[in-house]
């Protein structure tokens, strides 16, 4: 129990440190990006010299990266994430409006991916037929060789939901590891003995195989969240789904850096939480098994 608490504290600390370093890195990149100090308002012919100087003075504090970053953090702590340059709306509102769709898409995509992964991996481990194994490997290998954006385009052409495209992008990565883990687990001596003694497949799976492979499968599940978030960008952008992925793509095309930095921090938070959660649950499973 104590080691679990230490583990959670360690993850929380690592999360905060990564967010701090990641945010600082993003702020530095934004500060150094070409066109950072350019304001279109200065092109307004109605502005006099004093007004122009006032605009420049207002931006002056942003010149120092650390001051720029800390003033951003201070505002963020009060819930002000700034305003999108391209869309002219508060970043907080944009994120709040689009987050539910992305979360739904990711949940469905990940659910489908894992259903496909476990079905194919378990059947490969149960059947132990080289033809079936080759077939599933070829199918997953083929999806691995197709760019995520092409799968998103094909999902539009075939009129299938975006969550299926996400599932097909994530599945080849998770299948490979899961299949190897399960095949290895099923070839352990105690499983072979249990089979020889006539134990049912369901009992072998839930009592002897899953407890052994659960920590590693959970680790892969954590990584699959990161893969799904990455896949959400082309899927949402090309399928016309108004989520965070599409927002990130629009921000990238419009070089809307304030919006992009906030999305970067949000995505980092989601992926780190997923990985940390997977690790903590894996630790708990290992502890129970011991």
């Amino acid at each position, binding site marked *: 129990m104590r080691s679990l608490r230490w583990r959670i504290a360690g993850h929380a600390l690592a999360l905060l440190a990564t967010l701090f370093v990641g945010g600082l890195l993003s702020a530095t990149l934004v500060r150094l990006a070409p066109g950072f100090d350019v304001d279109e308002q200065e092109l307004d012919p109605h502005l006099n010299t004093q007004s122009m100087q006032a605009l420049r003075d207002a931006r002056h504090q942003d010149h120092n990266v650390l001051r720029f970053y800390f003033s951003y953090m201070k505002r963020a702590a009060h819930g002000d994430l700034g305003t999108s340059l391209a869309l002219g709306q508060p970043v907080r509102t944009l994120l709040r409006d689009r987050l539910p769709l992305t979360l739904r898409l990711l949940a469905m995509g990940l659910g489908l991916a894992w259903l496909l992964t476990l079905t194919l991996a378990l059947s490969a481990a149960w059947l132990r037929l080289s033809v079936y194994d080759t077939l599933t490997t070829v199918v997953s290998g083929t999806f691995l060789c197709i760019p995520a954006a092409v799968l998103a385009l094909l999902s539009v052409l075939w009129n299938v939901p975006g969550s299926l495209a996400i599932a097909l992008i994530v599945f080849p990565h998770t299948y490979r590891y899961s299949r190897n883990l399960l095949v290895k687990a099923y070839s352990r001596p105690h499983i072979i003995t249990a089979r020889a003694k006539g134990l049912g497949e369901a009992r072998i799976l839930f009592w002897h195989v899953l407890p052994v492979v659960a920590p590693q499968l959970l680790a892969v599940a954590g990584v699959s969240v990161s893969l799904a978030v990455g896949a959400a960008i*082309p899927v949402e952008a090309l399928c016309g789904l108004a989520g965070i992925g599409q927002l990130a793509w629009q921000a990238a095309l419009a070089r809307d850096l304030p919006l992009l930095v906030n999305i970067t921090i949000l995505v980092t938070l989601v992926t780190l939480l997923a990985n940390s959660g997977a690790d903590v649950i894996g630790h708990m499973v290992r502890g129970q098994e011991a």
Partner: protein
Amino acid sequence: MSLWRKLACVALALVLGASVAANWLAPGGYARQYREATDAPPSHAHWLGTDEIGRDRFARVLYGTRISLLLAPAAALLSTLMAALIGGLAGYLGGAWARMAMAVTNVFLSLPWLFLLITARALMPLNVSPLVSVLVTFMLLGLLGWTTAARVLCTTAGSLRTSDFVRQARAAGIPGQRLFWLHVMPNLKPVLYAQFWISIPVFILSEANLGILGLGVAEPMPSWGSLLRELEGLVSVGEEPWKFVPLILLVVVVTSFQLLLSKQEEVAA
């Protein structure tokens, strides 16, 4: 060598050969417009038809293949060198250096790869010349793609640091810098080669993703990514199947790499 690996070698050699011979196979070039035949289907004059502004699709596929196939290894070389320097050195030095390097690596790894790419690409100017866009795209891949390799190299270099031969060399009075370049780096070579080859298909796919999203190589320069953007305009899959040729080529090349790399991945692990 298995039959599949031989086939993969032949496929890669054919595709690479055709792309290198693009000047002879498609002397018209990738930017020449045939205004009398815009969006034309395949014919004797244009084997894969023309695009919506009348450019020969076959020529564009060949030149695009050349760009993707020649620059992806260049980006892989850059990322491998960075990984060797950052990961190798951090692993060799150990202690706080290794922890610091791995913390930075973790920051990069915590972001989804495609997300990191589009964020970094957006920080660069988007309206640049086609040649600059090619260099920016592939340099970005190289500069951001070192993290996974660095982690592997840090672990390998860390185990080499505590190995007997390095300890003996240190005891014999060989200075640290010399020890790193003459004894540690040569032993990292197999992992470096493996990481280099593994990165190539990853970068090919990443460029394709960036290209389709409009953040890759700029027009009129072709690349697999920009060629695949044509699929966006399709109404059905069977309508103009010749538009799928760049995708088929990409899948063949990446599959060939995967077949050849299965052994390299074992070394990298």
